[in-house]
């Protein structure tokens, strides 16, 4: 299964997205990397790296992020943890995470799920 990492400035938000993604895909390998070590708001290189390592397998990892330093810090983690099948995805956080969780459990590959997340960028809520 493709692993999933949720990066957010807030630990609560990252854990909340993990919770929501698991509603329909309880067995998906997913990890939250939210906030700083001491629980304050921000993004932590160490937390992101640890989360990627936790869910990493040969099936790859998709990383969903909130904004700003979450994007830049994840980029730096990816430069160091340099594997072609670990990707940061540019799409809405909640919708992207739910879709990836469901499709990962359904057996889709990283490349297949990547294609599907493209639609998430433009899907309207109503």
């Amino acid at each position, binding site marked *: 299964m493709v692993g999933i990492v949720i990066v957010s400035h807030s630990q609560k938000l990252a854990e909340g997205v993990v919770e929501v993604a698991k509603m329909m895909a309880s067995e998906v390998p997913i990890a939250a990397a939210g906030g*700083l070590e001491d629980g*304050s*708001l*921000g*993004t*932590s*290189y*160490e937390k992101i790296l640890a989360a990627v390592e936790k869910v990493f397998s040969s099936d790859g990892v998709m990383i969903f992020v909130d904004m*700003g*330093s979450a994007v*830049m*810090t994840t*980029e*730096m983690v990816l430069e160091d943890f340099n594997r072609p099948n670990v990707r940061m995805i540019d799409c809405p956080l909640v919708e992207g995470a739910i879709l990836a969780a469901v499709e990962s459990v359904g057996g889709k590959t990283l490349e297949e799920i990547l294609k599907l997340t493209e639609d998430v960028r433009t899907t309207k809520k109503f």
Partner: protein
Amino acid sequence: MDTKKILAIISAVAKKIEAEKNFLTQLDNEIGDGDHGINLARGFKSVEEKIPTWADKDIGAILKGVGTQLVSTVGGASGPLYGTAFMKAGNVCKGKNFLAAEDFVAALEAAVNGIKMRGKAVEGEKTMLDALCPALKTLKENLAGGKNFVEALSVAVDAAAAGVEFTKTIIATKGRASYLKERSLGHQDPGATSSLMMLQATLEVLREA
């Protein structure tokens, strides 16, 4: 500039950031989330703690060490941005135990390019680049014009200060402040201000010598 001088500069930067922590945070309160000073002070405190372990390292390794420390402790956008800047500067100074004027320029240029790359930003977007780009340009021009390094850096610091003033007149298009659109007008950018402080601290150390 030898290794000792570089370490003295890093230490002076750390002290200045700590001293100006509340001011930087107040600036970030106005157009951001009010943590820039807290973020950088946390980062440079961890840098300062490492300084004693760097005494026998070359300048490239030291600057890389500063970058690594900032990336893992700052927590806000300035972490990956300044982190990348110091790491790129470190690459340029690899194996060096002494920096001539042209080495310093090359390191600053690599740092500025690193910030542009990481932030996908250019000059004029109300970021740290609005202090650093004019400083780099002015430093180069004044060295080429025959000024000695300290004189040239002094004019470059003035250019950075003018850049900080300029950020009051423009709308942020990168970073958190960009959400405020025209409400970011009239406020100076916290990141440009911290960049100016780093250059000022560097100049102060070099003037002492």
